[in-house]
């Protein structure tokens, strides 16, 4: 008599929720970090005027930057949590490629970036490319 070994299985919705959490946290982190860097200004110019110390101080005294890095850290831990329940071959390509599309949407909505047809095409091509490469 063989004893069935319980295989941890995750349903469709929990898996979707885990990947969605990674994508949303990562997108929020990227958008906040990008907004922080735009509010700080061109780092090359700041470094030319105030030196490396001035550039570092401009970054580390920006609250938006810390908010962004915090969300990126949460995204990292949610990735670790997902990898504990799901296969890498599912989580890595799905989260990497979906994040590109959500970042394009968030960039247009929140950062008011000019996401024209060229950038949409690029985001979708890279998204499919990352999926094919990592799958």
């Amino acid at each position, binding site marked *: 008599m063989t004893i069935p070994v319980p295989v941890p299985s995750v349903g469709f919705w929990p898996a979707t929720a885990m990947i969605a959490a990674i994508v949303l946290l990562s997108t929020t982190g990227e958008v906040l970090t990008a907004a922080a*860097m*735009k*509010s700080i*200004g061109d780092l090359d110019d700041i470094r030319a*005027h105030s030196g490396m110390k001035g550039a570092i101080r401009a970054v580390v005294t920006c609250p938006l930057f810390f908010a962004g890095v915090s969300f990126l850290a949460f995204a990292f831990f949610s990735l670790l949590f997902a990898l504990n329940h799901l296969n890498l071959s599912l989580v890595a390509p799905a989260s990497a490629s979906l994040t590109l599309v959500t970042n394009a949407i968030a960039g247009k909505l929140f950062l008011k*970036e*000019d996401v024209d047809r060229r950038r949409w095409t690029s*985001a979708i091509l890279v998204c499919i490319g990352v999926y094919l490469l990592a799958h």
Partner: protein
Amino acid sequence: MAHHNLLPRQYLILGLVAVCAPLGDTCLSRGMTQLPAITLAHPATLVAAVFTPWIAVGIALLIGFFASYLTALSWADLTFVLPATAFGNVIVALLSRFWLHEAISLERWGGIVLITVGVGFVANGPSLTERPAAAGALPAIPEQVQEEQVR
């Protein structure tokens, strides 16, 4: 200050973003696989791992990646920088094919072509959204830095 055409040093920064992340990850992976299995019961071994050569180089490369990434975001749009960073995946795949002599399936070659074309598309366009200097626009340089520049 809007840069529509990137300067050579800005292409260099984007190149560093694309190269440092995959190389850093590869160094970390190589360093961690050379170590014996680390358990939560002995967390000090994880700290010791930081000082091994491959992992130290990996961390240095990832710090380089983050610094370059932040610099790029300070003069280019997020929707411009992110596809460019994805080119790192292509570099890893090509390194694994021609350096490690790993086989690359037809699907992966397809992925390499799509990412390359996608990055080419976005790289030919403007890097930063032009904004009128009207109310609501983000300041180019924060007050504290402007004060410092005046001093």
